[in-house]
């Protein structure tokens, strides 16, 4: 019976050790995967922040260019409005 108990203890010890090693291995791989995920997300966030800043800069630049065009368009619309109000063409004088 002692031999049986010893064999049983040896069997259970071997199984426990195998489970512990497997768990440790899985935990190590999981930690590595989580670290890789965090690194990927950090890189993506930095890249997107840069993209957003670049796009906003482009939008602001295009808006500035549009301002010049719309300035002239505003003058045209202002003349058209004035003409309609006064029911006659207006002089095309310099305005601010």
């Amino acid at each position, binding site marked *: 019976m002692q031999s049986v108990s010893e*064999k049983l203890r040896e069997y259970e010890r*071997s199984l426990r050790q195998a489970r512990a090693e*497997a768990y440790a291995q899985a935990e190590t791989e999981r930690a590595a*995967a989580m670290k890789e*995920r965090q690194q990927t997300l950090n890189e993506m*966030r930095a890249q997107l922040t840069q993209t957003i800043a670049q796009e906003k800069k482009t939008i602001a630049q295009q808006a500035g260019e549009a301002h010049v065009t719309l300035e002239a368009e505003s003058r045209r619309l202002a003349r058209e409005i*004035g003409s309609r109000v006064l029911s006659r063409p207006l002089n095309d004088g310099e305005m601010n």
Partner: protein
Amino acid sequence: MFLDLIFAFENPRWWDYPGFELWKFVNLAIFVIALVFALRRFFGVPEMFRNRKESIRAELEKARTERDAALAKLKEVEERLASLDSQVATIKERSMIEAREERERIARSTQDEISKLTAQAQREIENAATVAKKDLRRFTAEQSVRLAEEMIKRDIRPDDDARLFKRNIEEMGATR
């Protein structure tokens, strides 16, 4: 010496020979019968022996059962030990499968997060564009009205003023 023994048998009777008297055997027989009777009658010796026999048989049976159980246990343990390597291999394989599934789950989660971040960035850019367009429209409208007002103030003549006044009066009358 042999002659002495022959002569010794000749004198006494056969049931009363010294040292081998018959009455002693009779006494012994009576004693044994009485003893057996007393043991059976008053002390329950047969029952005791029967019980003892049953007890020994039960103990033997119990020992046999325990031996069988121990042998079965030994066999089971030996079978387990024999399959230990395959069980360890199974544990490792299962662990590898679970680790792979976990890695895939984390990868999917990462892709989902990237999709969300990208969509959020896209929305932020679209909002910026919408705000810029709205600002340009407001600027155009305000600028047009302001310039029109300045042009009208600069170019309006008395007859324009009178005509506008008259038209306003007419429109008020039509409204009523």
